[in-house]
């Protein structure tokens, strides 16, 4: 079965600290993976995507993610968090038709 798991429902980090949001997936073939961010009152915005090739993917706003097939993971990282990064983050898997399968989401809180 196709699924995405985000083990951390809520994470709090201090501004300027590094961030890693975990994502594990289950899929029978090579996955197409995405990270989206959802800010209050805003639509979902694409941060980055992995289709193939280089397993370290760079995205917008200084985010990056690393695809690790052996661990079925696609963790999102940022070296230094800004207060404006506070939002909900979703890891997604794309099925064959393009239908997206979402993780449960991780809410990021940033302390000043």
């Amino acid at each position: 079965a196709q699924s995405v798991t985000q083990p951390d429902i809520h994470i709090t980090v201090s501004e300027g600290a590094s961030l890693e949001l975990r994502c594990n997936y289950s899929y029978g073939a090579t996955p197409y993976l995405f990270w989206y961010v959802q800010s209050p009152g805003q639509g979902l915005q694409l941060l980055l995507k992995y289709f193939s090739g280089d397993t370290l993917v760079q995205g917008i706003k200084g985010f990056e993610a690393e695809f690790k097939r052996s661990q079925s993971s696609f963790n999102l990282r940022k070296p230094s968090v800004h207060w404006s990064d506070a939002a909900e983050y979703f890891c997604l898997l794309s099925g064959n038709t393009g239908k997206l399968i979402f993780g449960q989401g991780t809410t990021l809180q940033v302390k000043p």
Partner: protein
Amino acid sequence: GAGVSQSPRYKVAKRGQDVALRCDPISGHVSLFWYQQALGQGPEFLTYFQNEAQLDKSGLPSDRFFAERPEGSVSTLKIQRTQQEDSAVYLCASNWREGLNEQYFGPGTRLTVT
């Protein structure tokens, strides 16, 4: 417009009422998706259109839910005889070709059934 738009942004319905939610995708986008996001949850797939054809409706929770895209652009999600469990944010997304690619999401319609 530049992005996906949805209307209304907020809808309050009394239990048993019918509602219609509209999605205007980005012009020229072939694929259109509807998702339902319950409070505190990730969005879940409802249905998918490629142009005017509804290719996948496996996520529609009951026969009270109906979606259409008659001219291959604007789409309407209709919920008949609304129930409290239908309260959620309904998200629409589109992309420019069928199949795999990132999707562009609208702001959603928050439906509250009282």
